[in-house]
């Protein structure tokens, strides 16, 4: 499985402090020559290292705003979490500000989220699904499952993410309304998320993505703020309801589904813990599991600016403000679904998700078993302090790295010290010995 990733290292800034290697949920980072190195196939782009690095040496590659000029017609797809970055009472102002940045149109990912909710409800009722159904909205969680929980792949909701649905509908709409060819229309996700960038380059469950670029919220934040000050009269552009906007924060997706038997978990390590329990056959009464890699949900995304707790509160306020309009807004959802005659089949995955077997010791089970024993033997010689000085996150990972041929036992400073001590003792011993020509026995 190819697993391109978007998170990069600024070598200049990296001090090799080993903070990031400790937090990575897939043990994808090593420190070599005092610099962090990401193992491409292991990285799931959860952004945990971006948040952890005290020197801001980790960053995500995204597209610049200039990219949009490659297209004749430019559509902005703001993530629901985009709304939470600014202190505004009217979402329309924000959408208008995006137009001011050079976009010709906006389509709210929050609206697409409502469409996804609509089809997810249908899917939940279908017989063939495995419970609990695991949300596929967070690509980092999907990748975590492919890498660490391969037996849960079949529980993943095989429905396109809101971002993807938004791009699809927005492009079709413009084609229809303006008669512009599809390849002249550019759809750009305004993103809190590094994993979505990776998704666009190598989609999950689909051959290709309708999204043409991903622009970090932090990169447009300043511009949007300054535009907001200038905006006087605004056109009503927003059609998303509180339910769609609610997707920005952890639990919003489940809430929109209006079911009671759900669990929502945020933070990649917490998500991993609960996935373990699902694996054990617990959480059997749960119909839906919403796991989001970022703490707080997408509002806590690595490319978002605002404090996630403040952002979460704004999402709540915006959602409840739309309460009275909820009915007419959900009528919009159905209108869109009908006008494109969308059916569940249209949003289902085109291809199955593969497992990402990078954590396997060997593809041949017998050889893997041998390696496993070797790992354990090496591990019993290591001090078990998990200090990270060797550049691997734990003694166990070092043992595996040694067996895989990427490291040496003397990378462990304790073993190195032991060896040096032994050597020193030998030297002392040798230095006490005299050459035979001088050796004399006076007795």
């Amino acid at each position, binding site marked *: 499985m190819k697993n391109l990733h978007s998170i990069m290292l600024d070598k200049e800034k990296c001090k090799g402090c080993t903070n990031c290697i400790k937090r990575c949920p897939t043990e994808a980072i090593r420190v070599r020559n005092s610099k962090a190195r990401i193992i491409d196939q292991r990285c799931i782009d959860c952004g945990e290292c971006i948040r952890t690095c005290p020197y801001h040496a980790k960053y995500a590659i995204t597209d610049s705003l200039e990219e949009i000029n490659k297209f004749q017609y430019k559509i902005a797809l703001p993530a629901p979490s985009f709304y939470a970055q600014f202190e505004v009472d009217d979402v329309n102002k924000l959408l208008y500000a995006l137009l001011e940045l050079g976009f010709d149109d906006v389509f709210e990912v929050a609206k697409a989220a409502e469409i996804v909710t609509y089809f997810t409800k249908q899917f939940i009722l279908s017989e063939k699904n495995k419970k609990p159904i695991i949300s596929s909205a967070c690509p980092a969680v999907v990748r975590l499952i492919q890498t660490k929980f391969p037996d849960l792949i079949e529980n993943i909701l095989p429905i396109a993410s809101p971002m993807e649905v938004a791009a699809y509908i927005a492009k079709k709409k413009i084609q229809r309304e303006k008669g512009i060819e599809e390849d002249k229309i550019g759809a750009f996700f305004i993103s809190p998320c590094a994993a979505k960038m990776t998704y666009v380059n190598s989609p999950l469950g689909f051959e290709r993505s309708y999204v043409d670029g991903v622009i970090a919220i932090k990169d447009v934040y300043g511009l949007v703020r300054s535009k907001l000050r200038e905006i006087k009269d605004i056109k009503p552009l927003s059609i998303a309801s509180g339910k769609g906007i609610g997707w920005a924060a952890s639990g919003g997706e489940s809430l929109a589904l209006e079911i009671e038997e759900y669990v929502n978990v945020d933070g990649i390590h917490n998500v991993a813990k609960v996935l373990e329990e699902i694996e*054990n056959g617990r959480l059997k009464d749960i119909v839906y599991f919403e796991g989001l890699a970022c703490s707080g949900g997408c509002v806590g995304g690595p490319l978002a600016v605002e404090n996630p707790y403040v952002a979460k509160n704004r999402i709540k306020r915006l959602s409840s403000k739309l309460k009275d309009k909820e009915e007419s807004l959900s009528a919009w959802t159905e209108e869109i679904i009908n006008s494109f005659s969308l059916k569940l089949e249209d949003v289902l995955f085109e291809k199955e998700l593969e497992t990402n077997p990078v954590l396997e010791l060997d593809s041949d089970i017998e050889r893997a078993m041998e390696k*496993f024993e070797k790992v354990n033997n090496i591990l019993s010689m290591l001090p078990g302090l998990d200090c990270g000085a060797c550049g691997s996150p734990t003694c166990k990972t070092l043992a595996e790295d040694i067996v895989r041929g990427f490291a040496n036992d003397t990378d462990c400073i304790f073993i190195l010290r032991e060896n040096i001590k032994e050597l020193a003792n030998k030297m002392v011993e040798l230095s006490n010995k005299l050459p035979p020509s001088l050796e004399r026995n006076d007795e």
Partner: protein
Amino acid sequence: MLLELEFEIEPGNFILAGEASSKIKETLKKLGVKPEILKKVAIVSYEAEMNIVIHSVGGILKAIISKDKIEVIAQDNGPGIEDIELAMKEGYSTAPEEIRNLGFGAGMGLPNMKKYSDYFEIDSQKGKGTRVYMIIYNK
């Protein structure tokens, strides 16, 4: 080649409960065992571990991994099961109220273990202990 993993299970310790089966699972993932097989072993070893935690005075959980099969053995030191046939019924449980309140002991342990293993054998003597032996073929 055989890989043997053995874990001692403490009775009544719900904090540690699940650790042994987690380690078994982790090992199988490192070995590249197929997801379908992994899933079965995950469930039976977890249920077996929980049974020792809930019902016994302590015991061991063991996994013997070879190329074509995974054997899971749960052996405890008592008190044993009075009526095995009854214990194998779905929903039948002797777990005390406070454990049920924790969400365990719903009486699905043994039936699930049987359901998800390819071979299932249970041996129990009142006052002595219980031994469950399961095989999951790695095909």
